[in-house]
């Protein structure tokens, strides 16, 4: 006997009415992607639920894999058996055996949609409960109020279904169901986390990275590609737009007073990002900013920086502490990559004492002496776009097929 299917519950999608079909389709695609390594497993969707038919694949491995798919509320491994009472008994015992050590109390809840079945609901509950108690004497007890396991037995015409364990899914909405946004990916700890959280709420994202050779190295770019590869876990691939930023950065250093260079740099990054967003037909820009974390992330700075565009700027981490962000980064497996100590576009030109309370009029005044528009246009034009696939050795790595 073995678990033969997994029940998937949608959660929040089930509250959406008219666009429900597209939500479910998106979720289906993503579960299919998550199941890529399990060739035998198949997926069936109904209005309320989806079912993965295992066809011999290991249920635990599949659950581990799809637990992280956004849009899934909960999952349960389940069994389908024939209507023979002995078979049902054996299945019930198998079910609790799979949870040995995890549960101490249980109850049995039978649902009988097939009224021709020889036993009624109460008889079934007693029969199965007794069977389990006899076989698990001293290990399991019945608790009808707050059981560790509520073993659900559904008797239908075609077969009998057993489930009961509820495993929490990742929640959120299916990838892409909320539209598209551009993530500003610096290579630090915060921005990839902001990316994952945005995707959790159903956003499709593309990344923008500012690259300033020779002030930032090939390695810092590599780091960003590695992070993009991690983000690609959700959808299988991730687009990265690499913006050549050296020229603008040098001009800022020349033209803007030192303590305002940071503010100006951010303003220009945002303008460029917005131009790329427009080209890619996305609807928002996502940053990894957390209020007050550094000089550019104070309220005054945000006010002075955000002024350059009217596009919504989403800041999923705004209310999080650094340690909370680090925890999430570890969970998303990006922390190790982010923590590599290479200079990035933000650190190289950081002035010794950047303004934490920049004045909008001042920065506008300083910038008014330079025509940045042309440069921005050029930047957008020279932006190189790369698509990183999940599991792909990012470009720049040594050609190594035969070395390993």
């Amino acid at each position, binding site marked *: 006997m073995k678990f033969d299917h997994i029940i998937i519950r949608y959660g929040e999608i089930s509250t959406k009415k008219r666009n429900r079909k597209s939500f479910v389709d998106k979720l289906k695609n993503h579960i299919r992607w998550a199941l890529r390594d399990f060739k035998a497993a198949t997926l069936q969707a109904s209005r309320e639920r989806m079912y993965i038919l295992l066809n011999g694949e290991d249920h635990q491995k599949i659950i581990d894999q799809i637990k992280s798919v956004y849009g899934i509320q909960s999952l349960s491994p389940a069994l389908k058996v024939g209507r023979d009472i002995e078979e049902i008994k054996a299945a019930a015992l198998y079910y609790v055996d799979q949870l040995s050590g995890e549960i101490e109390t249980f109850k049995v809840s039978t649902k009988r949609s097939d009224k021709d079945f020889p036993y009624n609901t109460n008889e079934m509950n007693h029969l199965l409960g007794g069977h389990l108690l006899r076989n698990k004497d001293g290990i399991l007890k019945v608790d009808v109020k707050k059981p560790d396991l509520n073993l659900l037995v559904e008797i239908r015409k075609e077969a009998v279904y057993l489930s009961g364990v509820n495993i929490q899914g990742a929640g959120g909405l299916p990838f892409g169901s909320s539209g598209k946004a551009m993530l500003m990916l610096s290579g630090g700890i915060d921005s990839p986390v902001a990316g994952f959280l945005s995707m959790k709420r159903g956003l499709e994202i593309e990344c923008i990275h500012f690259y300033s050779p020779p002030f930032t*190295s*090939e390695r810092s770019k590599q780091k960003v590609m590695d992070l993009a590869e991690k983000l690609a876990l959700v959808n299988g691939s991730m687009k990265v737009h690499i913006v050549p930023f050296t020229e603008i950065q040098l001009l800022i250093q020349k033209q803007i007073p030192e303590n305002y260079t940071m503010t100006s740099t951010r303003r220009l990054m945002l303008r460029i990002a917005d131009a790329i967003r427009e080209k890619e037909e996305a609807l928002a820009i996502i940053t990894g900013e957390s209020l007050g974390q550094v000089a550019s992330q104070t309220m005054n700075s945000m006010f002075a920086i955000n002024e350059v565009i009217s596009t919504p700027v989403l800041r999923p981490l705004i209310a999080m502490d650094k340690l909370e962000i680090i925890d999430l980064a570890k969970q998303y497996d990006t922390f190790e990559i982010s923590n590599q100590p290479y200079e990035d576009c933000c650190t190289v030109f950081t002035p010794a004492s950047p303004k934490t309370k920049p004045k909008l009029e001042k920065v506008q005044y300083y910038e008014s002496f330079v025509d940045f528009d042309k440069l921005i246009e050029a930047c957008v034009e020279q932006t190189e776009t790369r698509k990183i696939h999940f599991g792909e050795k990012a470009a*720049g*790595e*040594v050609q190594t097929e*035969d*070395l*390993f």
Partner: protein
Amino acid sequence: MIYFDNSATTKPYPEVIDSFIKVSTDYFGNPSSLHGLGAKAENLLTQARRQVAELLQVKSMEICFTSGGTEGNNLAIKGAAHAYSGRGKHIITTVMEHASIKETCKSLEEEGYEITYLQVDSDGLVSVEELKKALRTDTILVSIMSVNNEVGSIQPIAEIGQLLKEWPQVLFHVDHVQGIGKIPLDLTAGKIDLCTISGHKFHGLKGTGVLYIRDGIRVSPLFTGGNQEARLRSGTENVAGFVALAKALRLTLQKSAQDDGKLTEIREMLFQGLNDMQGVKINSPKHGAPHIINFSIPGIKSEVFIHSLEEKEIYLSTTSACSSKKKSVSDTVLAMFHDQRRAESVIRISTSYGNEHYEAELVLREIKNTLLKLQKVMR
């Protein structure tokens, strides 16, 4: 030539040497250098680490590259003992560990640590019950090898791991140098905190090894300096060696997965053949690791025996290579049988993937001939 001394060292796979040469020639940069050459070397190091982690089914950050088994064991034992001395100073190990564990424990004894050495039975096994009794509230570390290097007994690592689940304060180190690629070991399920392997025991190169350090475990470094290997092991990384190790590990685990029982068959052949010989006492347990078989010929000096076989281009060893030079008795065999004469005349055969049935046949025949010849002379 018949090489039956694979527990001393293995012959590196040609593909492994190719990798070493290619990396040493083309990617010789220092991984800590900032320029492109350094970046490439670092990249290779990262990939090697990732591959080893994937093969061992652990996280990249849990892999610390070392120079081999001895360093790995030293880093594990001393490193953990020093990092957790605040919790207690009691360590449990066994009487049949490799010298790099035993001597390290001895040196800790001089520092004021207390060591309990678990006895083994005539199958070369420790008893989990004994271990249970030996555990104390000030125990900080249990170090037990998975496969004994001399007789090949397989310790009940999974069971010990289960027991130690109830002792979350106690770290569990497994010396897996002889076991890797030969017997399965689940690091995550086994509650293993530290695990040593050595490159040259699985057809990699000498001077390379890995210490697995579970995420969250602190270990004090043996070397201080440039803080390479996440501060655990300063010194410029042996990139070429570690790339070679990653490849050797992949190939070995592949061969292990493809092995259809040949290694075990060869061992059974040898076991049966030696068992039938007069004057030979087998020291290995009947159900041991598939690649080690150890026997004694009481009354005949094992060194003479080894040299006689060497004339026929058959390479075996006396006791473990690391202690064979000091002309001592085998502590392991002594601990198992309490028989001095038996422990003085120990011979070990150790095979690997690539050895053939006919080699075992030939070796058995030559052992028999040599035995008859020597028994005449030495009596």
